[in-house]
């Protein structure tokens, strides 16, 4: 996607978001303690946001058309699924869902190792040294943090299956 296409798209998203904020403001319970009330700010903000997003769409469309006319448009790249990115997001969401049942120590060990795997370029773990470093860090950090917080600071991280 070219830069101007991207701007067009984000402008549209912002426009949709501002309409959403505006529409949802009507379900706010009105109060009369102050003359503006709780709907005023969200409405003003969404209107200004809507105008700005129109400016954004307009200017990026103009730029895009110009680029097209001048034939500067870059060739379209085929849309590719970025697996490490999607897996990282899945990993983070999984962490949220599993933290209470599984607990901090085991889940963080798994998270750390998987995340390192997803960051190191493919094939890095063929190198024994990197694999060992990653493994040791993944195991040592969560255990150390958990007990430091538990005994040192009296902050109890979710214990999960170990509780």
């Amino acid at each position: 996607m070219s830069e101007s296409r991207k701007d067009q798209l984000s402008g549209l998203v912002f426009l949709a978001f501002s309409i959403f904020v505006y529409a949802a403001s009507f379900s706010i319970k009105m109060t009369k303690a102050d003359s503006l009330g709780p709907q005023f700010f969200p409405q003003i903000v969404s209107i200004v946001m809507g105008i700005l997003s129109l400016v954004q769409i307009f200017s990026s469309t103009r730029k895009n058309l110009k680029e097209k006319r001048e034939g500067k448009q870059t060739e379209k790249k085929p849309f590719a699924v970025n697996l490490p990115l999607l897996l990282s997001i899945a990993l983070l969401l999984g962490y949220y869902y599993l933290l209470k049942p599984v607990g901090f120590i085991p889940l963080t060990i798994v998270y750390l190792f998987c995340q390192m795997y997803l960051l190191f370029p493919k094939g890095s773990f063929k190198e024994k040294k990197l694999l060992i470093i990653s493994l040791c860090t993944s195991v040592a950090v969560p255990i150390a943090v958990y007990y430091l917080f538990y005994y040192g600071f009296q902050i109890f991280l979710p214990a999960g299956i170990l509780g």
Partner: protein
Amino acid sequence: MKKLISVLLVLCMFLGLANVALADKFPSKPIQIICPVKAGGDTDRNTRQLALALEKVLGVSVVTVNVNGGATVMGMEQALDAEPDGYTLIINGTDMFVPNMMGTTDINLSSFKTIGIPLIDNTTVLVAHKDSGYADLKDLVEKSAAQPDSIEYGGKIGATNQICGIAMNKEWGSAFRFQDVGNNAAKITALLGRQTDVINLSYSLALDYFKTGEFQALCLLGSEANELIPDAKLASEFGYKNVDFSKFFWVGVNPDTPDEIVDILADALAKAAQDPEFLAYLKENFLTPACMLKEEAQAYAQKFYEDTMEIYKDEFIAAQ
């Protein structure tokens, strides 16, 4: 990779075993007290002092956990979501009723089992700046009634502060205009800067200003005198009805907690409330010791709500 995972699993199990040998005797692990406001205020301070006293009685560590947000609702929800094993307690006060009054939550006193009430904060005073020149409460009320809305009462909107304003106007015939100024710190600032005329406040929060004479305690907003604060008289001494905005300090627990555990906790609370250091702390902060347990405490809290807050509910909702 597979080998690796199995190594991890074994390690996790090993760690798990270390923690399994419990659950025969209560309490056998640390207890958490949820404080539904952020760290640093007077509620938080009371919670931490109680935690210290409970620790001595129970023999395990008792840790204060601040869960702030939603006008104490987030903390109460977390206590209701916790395992009903007695290891998660919650504290609250008169603030717990307000979200329910406004209809923003179903959670109420009866959503919990009450452990007890170890102290009552009968230190709420009505305060004016000395430069405002009110002779006493009577003078203030009369001036306010003579010129409705000319005297501003500053507080936090949608909180017990506001109910207090409604109650004073209704019971005393004054005509204060309510103005939102914010939390306790903001109320003190506003009064110091003479931006607002009167506020209600816990006495110990502005002790310095009472000592210097800058702040004038017009009356104690309670039903009984507090001998630790002799300069704050009850409204009844001026011939007005007492408007009670003292605050009880309530300890509760998830309603599904077994009764045996509630009994153990209530016993511990009773002993903690008698702890000499805890009592010294109370005295230092003008607080009144109390030792109401379980049903007695629950009935007290419920009655307090009905007598001092619920009767102003319609006006309170109408003022929003």
